[in-house]
């Protein structure tokens, strides 16, 4: 039996008195594309941020490739990991943000080169070579030396995907990658993500793109009020939702 890529066990998370996650259980196998949908405030982005420890969890266990994220367990006790150890865990987990978060003072190529250069101490020529290759993969090789401010939203998001791929992650997290884009730019980003899925990348995608979820997703997870209401084959969930809340949500967005 293969080990799950991501294993979330009974995850709880509160911001102050607001309970955002109330017992999330989710398993994502290697090569699987899991799409997470749900109304805003349902906790789907927070859950995604817990996977790479951008948010600390209050209860439960988050494992990536069997390793606890953010903690070490020994003798039945949990120990918080040092910052450098958390940074080390994050190298294998790529993340793409809703607002791109490209480094505005660096060109597209420099954005992609940053982590390999700073974290892995790669040589400039090698990092540049790979950055160009990655930008070619997302169809932006001619924009290597453009600054983010000179790129459209769709182009920026594709650079952000290339930047995340530069660390050769085993898992990619997408936090509403197309929500900040003009409608006509959504397609180019989804195309790149489709290509990634085809190449076998394990992905968790928080999205509002039902078409993408249906076509590319292996699993569709519907979250509401901090819980997973329904999960399963995207076609089944989208066409034959079992839960009333899923039905109500889908009737609004489809």
């Amino acid at each position, binding site marked *: 039996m293969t080990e799950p890529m991501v294993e979330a066990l009974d995850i709880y998370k509160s911001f102050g008195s607001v309970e955002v996650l109330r017992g999330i259980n989710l398993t994502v196998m290697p090569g699987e594309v899991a799409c997470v949908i749900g109304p805003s405030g349902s906790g789907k982005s927070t859950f995604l941020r817990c996977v790479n420890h951008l948010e600390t969890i209050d209860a439960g266990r988050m494992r990536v490739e069997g390793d606890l994220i953010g903690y070490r367990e020994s003798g039945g006790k949990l120990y918080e990991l040092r910052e450098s150890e958390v940074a*080390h865990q*994050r190298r294998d987990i790529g*993340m793409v943000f809703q607002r791109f*978060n490209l480094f505005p*003072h660096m*060109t597209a190529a420099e954005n992609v080169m*940053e*982590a390999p250069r700073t*974290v892995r101490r790669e040589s400039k020529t090698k990092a540049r070579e790979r950055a160009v290759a990655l930008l070619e993969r997302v169809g932006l090789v001619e924009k290597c030396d453009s600054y983010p401010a000179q790129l459209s939203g769709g182009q920026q998001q594709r650079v952000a995907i290339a930047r995340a791929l530069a*660390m050769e992650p085993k898992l990619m997290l997408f936090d509403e990658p197309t929500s900040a884009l003009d409608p006509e730019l959504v397609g180019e980003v989804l195309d790149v993500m489709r290509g990634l899925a085809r190449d076998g990348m394990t992905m968790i995608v928080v999205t509002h793109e039902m078409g993408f979820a249906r076509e590319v997703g292996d699993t569709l997870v519907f979250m509401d009020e901090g819980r997973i209401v329904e999960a399963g084959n995207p076609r089944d969930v989208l066409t034959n939702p079992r839960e009333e809340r899923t039905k109500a949500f889908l009737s609004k967005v489809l």
Partner: protein
Amino acid sequence: MTGPAVGTTKHEHPIEAVPLRHPGRWVAVAVLAVLAAMLVHTVLTNEGFRWDVVGRYLFSTPILNGLANTLLLTVLSMVIGVVGGIGLAVMRLSPNPVLTGAAAVYIWLFRGTPLIAQLLFWNYLSALYPRLGLGIPFGPVFVSADVNSLITPFAACLLGLGLNEAAYMAEIVRGGLQSVDRGQSEAAGALGLSRVQALRRVVLPQAMRVIIPPTGNETISMLKTTSLVVVIGYFELLTSAQRIYSTNFQTIPLLIVAAAWYLALTSVLSVGQGFIERKYGRGFNPTPSAGARMFFLRRNPEQAA
């Protein structure tokens, strides 16, 4: 595409309007021109300015010595101020409440007391602590030194000016760091950069854009604040000028000498600030380099098509 192309009709009917007149501007020009002429006239004809004395002292040894001290004090105090300010700002923003508190107390103390008092305090430190030593707290002392020989007037100047400046710089740097979107450090963290790496590579370079202009202000201000060291008997540009006019009574000409040097230094600093601002404006400037502009001109028609 069908229908009339909007772009081509634009130049067929250029606007031919009578430009708005601005009589007020001409009045202002006339008034200012008269005032300027009066100023130049009086500066050239009033004997009191003694331009010959100004010329004689502008490059005289005592003035140049004072100038060197002004420069040295400014540069070293600003280095202490900037380094200390970055340290304090990082402490201030750290999740550790002890560090945050310590930085807050430092800033409160050094911003809240007069600089002259601080300079005098460092100068007279030996009255409080005649000897400073290295050893185990409350235990034996291994080496110790006489404070009067340890803290020379020059050292007291640097301590006073530098530590005071650090408190102001701390707030400037903190403002800069906080101006950078949180998503930037999150993105850096998600890529596997450590907090220090994210600060150095991603957050600080962007914060610099916000930090540089007020820091330029601080440097220019420091240039002139150094003249306060006169209270502990040290000398710099203005003190040198004062010493000379207290013996030859050519007060105005020597003040002009000092002012001219301050103006010259300030001008050089402003130019330098412009260079640094351009460096850290990378990726933010609305005016891309000539090469980039050409690039855009060539690409735009393609994109429009």
